[in-house]
């Protein structure tokens, strides 16, 4: 399904001279029913189920589900991170898995039970302690998970996260457009979500 969206980008981008009106026309002709980007879990996950459980518990506290909408878990951030570790961050995988194990050890030592089994409040207490540098060996890991969570939450959905564009809706990023007119850059009328052209989603997708 990734190919479908890339092909459309290519078609639009391949011409050498594109007046804005022509791009507008091309946008208008894009089918609203084009397939959504691939969301399947990786075929060969980088994490086993226990490791994934720790990660999901972690990222669920970084960006929790609340009245503002879905959190990192619901948005597929765990899938995003798993795919990174299985592929382009494979060199980082051993260190990352050590981090998950160390988080669990820290939780056992300070709370008496495994991190994923804690209540949300207790998980927050553990993460706050790390954030306040009370577990120096976890400081770098904390920052790394937070960074990857932002990438998964707010990156292009084709990489497995930002499901239904919920991350972009959260920060009110409209979505990329191949051609942007003066009205799209106005401060008086903020741009509306624009997800059809590049991501194959209807204008109201995810709302």
């Amino acid at each position, binding site marked *: 399904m990734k190919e479908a969206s890339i092909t459309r980008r290519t078609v*639009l981008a391949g011409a050498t001279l594109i007046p804005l009106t022509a791009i507008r026309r091309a946008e208008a002709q894009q089918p609203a029913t084009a397939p959504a980007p691939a969301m399947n879990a990786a075929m060969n996950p980088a994490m086993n189920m226990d490791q994934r459980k720790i990660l999901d518990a972690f990222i669920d*506290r970084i*960006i929790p589900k609340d009245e*503002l909408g879905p959190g990192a878990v619901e948005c597929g951030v765990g899938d995003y991170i798993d795919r990174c570790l299985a592929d382009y961050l494979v060199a980082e995988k051993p260190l990352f898995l050590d981090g998950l194990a160390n988080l669990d050890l820290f939780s056992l030592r300070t709370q008496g039970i495994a991190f994923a089994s804690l209540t949300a409040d207790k998980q927050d207490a553990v993460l706050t302690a790390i954030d306040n540098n009370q577990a120096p060996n976890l400081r770098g890991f904390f920052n790394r998970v937070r960074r990857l969570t932002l990438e998964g939450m*707010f990156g292009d959905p084709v990489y497995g996260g930002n499901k239904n564009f919920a991350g*972009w809706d959260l920060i009110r990023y409209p979505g990329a457009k191949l051609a942007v007119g003066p009205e799209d*850059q*106005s*401060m008086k009328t903020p741009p509306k979500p624009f997800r059809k052209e590049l991501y194959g989603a209807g204008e109201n997708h995810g709302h």
Partner: protein
Amino acid sequence: MATNLKPVDVVVVGLGAAAGVAVLPLTRAGIKVTALEAGSWMQPSDFKADEIHNNVRRRVTTGTKVWDEIPTFRTNPDQRARQGAAPTMMNAVGGTSIHYYANSWRFHPWDFKVRSETVRRYGASAIPKGSTVEDWPLTYDDLEPFYDTIEYEIGVSGKAGNLAGKIDPKGNVFEGARRREYPMPPLRDTDFTEMMQAAARKAGFNPHRSPAAINSQPRNGRSVCAYHGYCDTGGCHVKAKNSTAVTTIPAAQKTGNLTIVERAHVKRILTDDNGKATGALYVRDGQEFFQPAKVVLLASYTYENVRMMLLSKSKAFPNGLANNHGQVGKHYIGHWANREVTGLFPVDLNIWYGANAQGVVVNNWAEDNFDHAGLGFIGGASLTVNHEVHPIAASAMPTFGRVPQWGSKWKKFVNENAGRWLGVYAQCNSLPYENTWLDLDPEVKDKLGDPVCRITSGPKVNEPRASAYAAKKAEEWFRAAGAIEVITVPNIEGPSLSTHATGGTRMGLKAESSVVDPYGFAHESPNLGILGGSTLVTHGARNPTLTIQALSWRTAEHVVKNWKSISG
């Protein structure tokens, strides 16, 4: 054994931003040029509106070769240097001009005479301690015709602030005199650029729009900018960014005198016993070739220019090519450029879209545009704000001490504010120092077994002071624009790997203190020209590419005019 190829007039090593313009005057004059480029042609379909592709994974900016050639870095000679995380270089036809922001500045006349102007106005003691700064062997006026040529050949958008001495407040009132207006007006103004210009004027500054090698109008059969907002570290999907790959290189190809060899990994430049360059030895698809030439133009990124020269040892040059005076690698400058000042605004800025170069600039606190008496530094910084904020970068915003960096409170904060914050990009006038140089790393090697470049960059006093002074002015600017929070996080370490790396084979009059002459030819090897940032003597408070291109064109014209003596 290397296969010996048929000799050509000129062999160019690296076909990027620098040689990409130089090949045009050469081939127009009928000189046969072979360009060895480590990368390949890129097409608009290689470029995506995708932050992970461009900015996180850096799929556009980095060919495969550069990943093995990332320089190592250390802050003092007692340290073991460590390899940086990501390269700043590029393998592709067009090189870094494909993915750069395309901010296309002329350096200020002061940049060419930092030493003499400083001594004249403030006395010799005002020269920063430990700096090896010299005046350039040419002036702004010498380079002006070439700036003009490049602006018209590739196409630059902007507004003149000094048209042959006539000052226009709509442009950069501090710039050196230019012979004519830019070929295109600035990129589109927006509510945001108007707001920031009004605020700067309120603060008493002289704002103007960024000059950009991006089409603000259709030009030479290519599109106007689509303002889609993925210009930074991406390529242009409508060929509106005027990289050499869509401007001067195709024009040179039309002459029939340019041969481009893609995927050519140059290993060495060879010389004869008299020190004349004889050609370039390269590997392509596992095979070794030697391309003989009458003139060799080395035109890769600063780190690779220096590395190539230090690797190219010979009987004539036992310490590296044209390095018998030990100057190769010296006077390297990592450009001091930071985003130290960040502001939070009470309104949506809507800067998601647009080109990075669709910006607003304040130059009041750069160069010698203000009195430095008693300030304890020379130079200063240009201050720029721009469009083009991507969603991951926006979400990684500072929280101004209002909420933690995660959790429900943070989520509410970014919901409100991810589109309401802004950093100012401060680029400092930067100088060469005794404690800052390039050489070969004793341990880290590339895939061919050659050492990578090593950066040693000791502490500085002048640049952080200049940057801190300019940061105060940036704070004033943001307050005038209605910012409700402004924070400054000083950068006192400076750059490690610099995307504006310059110096290392600097230009000068004497072999004792420089590597190339005022035309870019090596003092010690008369038919070896060097193009690129490595020849710069000082670094202006702005992006260096247009200056590099003006110098490259000048070198090429020099070759054309003096072909017999240089090639003979």
